[in-house]
């Protein structure tokens, strides 16, 4: 590694600047990593800087960041060394570095921040290889919402940590917590979250005198009426509804929302029974087949997130299904949609047990069973998911908190006003993909689902009943290998 080669003068200057408070914390981190300093050395330099900065921050706050110390974090972890796999080397890295440094500062532990792979597949491969060897290369690591089932055998139970946070008035959304619980074990703590939501052009609802739809049938009627009006006024490009239906993971997320919201279950239920060919599931997919080439463009079967957002962003879609990131872009000052839309829950179906559904995304903190400092690692995981750090993560990185109370925080609301509209989605509407029950074979389940649904939507297959019965057979075969 080239990290050994240091430029002494530049390093000395950095240390001096740190000690005399001539540079902000963010500057120091930036300059330090540019010089290739090791995490440990940076930690000690930054501790110097906090000596200088102490008087300015009486209630323990990371200089240059909005990260504050949770009251319960009064533990001495001197001499303990922890390694955490967090954000990849990109926009998230400076924040995660600061969070680690602040923890080290407050507890005396040494925290090595390992940058995870950017691609989720590569990251999962790294985790499985290390953990299968029972190696203690890392103690804490962040996992995708569809991985708890894959990694459960390597996970430390974190129920107590979550209960302690709840006792301090930081309650996690129940549905998100459920996704992280396998049997009685809480294999990971929710760190930040994401869910599918419906974007609506409120100005057009008003123009055509249509009420905001709460069921898919109402959405169909409203979308058709608005599209007819807009096309009639000469906007040929206008369509009623856009979503994601290309043959990829995003279609699995969309289809789960249609099926679950129609009372059709989650393709595979928690006990392992395959439900993808239930009557409600068939009805839900059949309904979606009717949208293609009708209220939705026929090319929707090739759309991923950004293809569909292009149409919405151009003002050419009355309704749009996407993830929360679209809100910020649509509400931006240079957006034509500013003030003309709302974000909310996706509609319900009308089958038995119809309920709101928003497919859950997001990341969680897991503690490795093979860690040499399981207790300290658990404290770190608890800190990473605490209300204080989640608040900072929401303010600095616009990632959605998993704790109910953070949504009422005035600072968070000021930084991300749309967050109040997301609250009901996470609170009552989120539904998890069947990843817990299918464990490491989840991708196979998802591939089978999106392949069949895409063929049905694109008209490569037309008999929805036969196709979903066949899909059920495929899923049963896969489940036998779990």
């Amino acid at each position, binding site marked *: 590694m080239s990290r050994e080669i240091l430029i002494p003068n530049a390093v000395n200057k950095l240390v001096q600047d740190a000690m005399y408070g001539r540079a902000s914390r963010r500057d120091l981190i930036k300059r330090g990593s540019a010089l290739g300093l090791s995490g440990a050395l940076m930690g000690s330099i930054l501790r110097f800087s906090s000596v200088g900065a102490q008087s300015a921050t009486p209630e323990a706050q990371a200089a240059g960041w909005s990260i504050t110390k949770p009251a319960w974090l009064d533990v001495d972890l001197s001499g303990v060394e922890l390694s955490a796999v967090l954000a990849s080397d990109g926009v998230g890295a400076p924040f995660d570095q600061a969070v680690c440094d602040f923890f080290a500062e407050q507890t005396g532990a040494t925290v090595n921040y390992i940058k995870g792979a950017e691609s989720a*597949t590569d990251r*999962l*491969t790294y985790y*499985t*290889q290390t953990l*299968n060897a029972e190696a203690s290369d890392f103690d804490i690591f962040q996992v995708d919402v569809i991985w708890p089932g*894959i990694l459960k055998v390597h996970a430390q139970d974190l129920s107590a940590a979550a209960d302690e946070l709840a006792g301090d008035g930081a309650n996690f959304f129940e549905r998100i917590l459920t996704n992280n619980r396998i049997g009685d074990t809480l294999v990971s703590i929710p760190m930040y979250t994401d869910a599918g939501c419906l974007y609506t052009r409120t100005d057009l609802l008003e123009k055509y005198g249509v009420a905001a739809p709460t069921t898919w049938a109402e959405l169909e009627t409203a979308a058709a009426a608005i599209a007819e009006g807009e096309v009639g006024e000469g906007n*040929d*490009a206008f*369509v009623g509804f856009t979503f994601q239906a*290309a*043959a*990829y993971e995003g279609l699995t997320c969309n289809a789960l929302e249609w099926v679950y919201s129609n009372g059709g279950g989650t393709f595979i239920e928690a006990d392992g029974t395959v439900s993808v060919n239930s009557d409600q599931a068939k009805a839900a997919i059949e309904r979606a087949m009717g949208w293609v080439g009708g209220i939705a*463009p*026929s*090319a*929707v*079967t*090739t759309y991923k997130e950004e293809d569909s957002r*292009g*149409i919405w962003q*151009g003002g*050419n879609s009355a309704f749009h299904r996407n993830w929360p990131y679209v809100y910020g872009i649509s509400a931006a000052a240079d957006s034509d949609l500013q003030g003309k839309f709302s974000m909310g829950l996706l509609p319900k179906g009308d089958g038995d047990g119809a309920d709101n559904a928003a497919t859950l995304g997001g990341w969680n903190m897991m503690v490795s069973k093979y860690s040499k400092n399981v207790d300290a690692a658990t404290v770190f995981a608890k800190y990473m998911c605490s209300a204080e750090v989640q608040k900072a993560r929401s303010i600095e990185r616009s990632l959605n908190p998993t704790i109910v109370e953070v949504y009422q925080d005035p600072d968070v609301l000021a930084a991300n006003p749309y967050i109040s509209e997301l609250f009901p989605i996470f609170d009552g509407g989120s539904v998890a993909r069947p990843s817990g029950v299918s464990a*490491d074979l989840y*991708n*196979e389940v998802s*591939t089978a689902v*999106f*392949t069949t649904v*895409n*063929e049905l939507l*694109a*008209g*490569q297959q037309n008999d929805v009943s036969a196709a979903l019965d066949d899909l059920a057979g495929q899923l049963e075969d896969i489940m036998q290998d779990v």
Partner: protein
Amino acid sequence: MATNTTTAAPRKVSKFSAPPTKAGRSIERLGWVLILPTVLVVLGIAIYPLVESFRLSFTNYRSSRPDRWRYVGFDNYRDLFSDEVFHKALWNTIIFTVTSVAAETILGMIVALTIHSAFKGRGVVRTSMLVPWAIPTVVSSMLWGWMLNDSYGIVNKTLVGMGFDRFHKFSWVGDPGTALMSIVAVDVWKTTPFMALLLLAGLQVIPDDVYEASRVDGASKWQQFWQITLPLLKPALLVALVFRTLAAFRVFDIIFVMNSYNTSTISVSVYAHRELMNNQRIGYGSAIAVVIFLCIAFLVVLYTRMIKVEET
């Protein structure tokens, strides 16, 4: 993909061996020492991965279960036999290969004959002709993806402007009827220049006096093409066909970028990627890779035979 095609160039087997003297033997030894690095590199980067793929294709190895796998005999191949998506992928690949190579050959021939004849500005035309080939495939795939886009693509705008209303919001890649042919068209656009270049090289070695003699004998242009140009171009044409067929059979990037895993256009290589990378089924994916290898090997043998027949 097309750039790293392996050549199956014909080779006369030499009967040479060093004379059985002391000097002769040392020359032979030196020969072995000199090619040793090459042999080692080939063993390391070609033979080893190939053997490993064969071995893995007889296992149920998954990258998520590195310590829970076993040999399953021919199970993976048996599953492939009844795998509908694999059948689709194989069929798509064959259609893609036949149609794209045929179209590229005919168009490439026309282009080569055109730029072979002398006309003003030939140099500029020759250079600009190569532009599609010079653009990386991923870039041209995205470019065409936008041009073929249903609502803001220039292709539909132009067609509707010309009065063909049925192309309003027509989804070229989404409609199962046009999806594969749209992708073939993009491949033809991209690869015709390469074909033309190879054929042009063949045209340039045909001596002019043959044409002169035929002109004296009163042959028409049409007769000249069928009786002189085509037979003399055959060796170059065969080499070009080998290159293109092998590359087309392994097509990956253009399909993956334009239509991901959609089964209306999935090719065997895209399917192997799906099973290996997305589903982490290393054993099953390796079986697909082995089948691709065997198909390519069959094509190579077929073409080498044809070239040999040509030579004798």
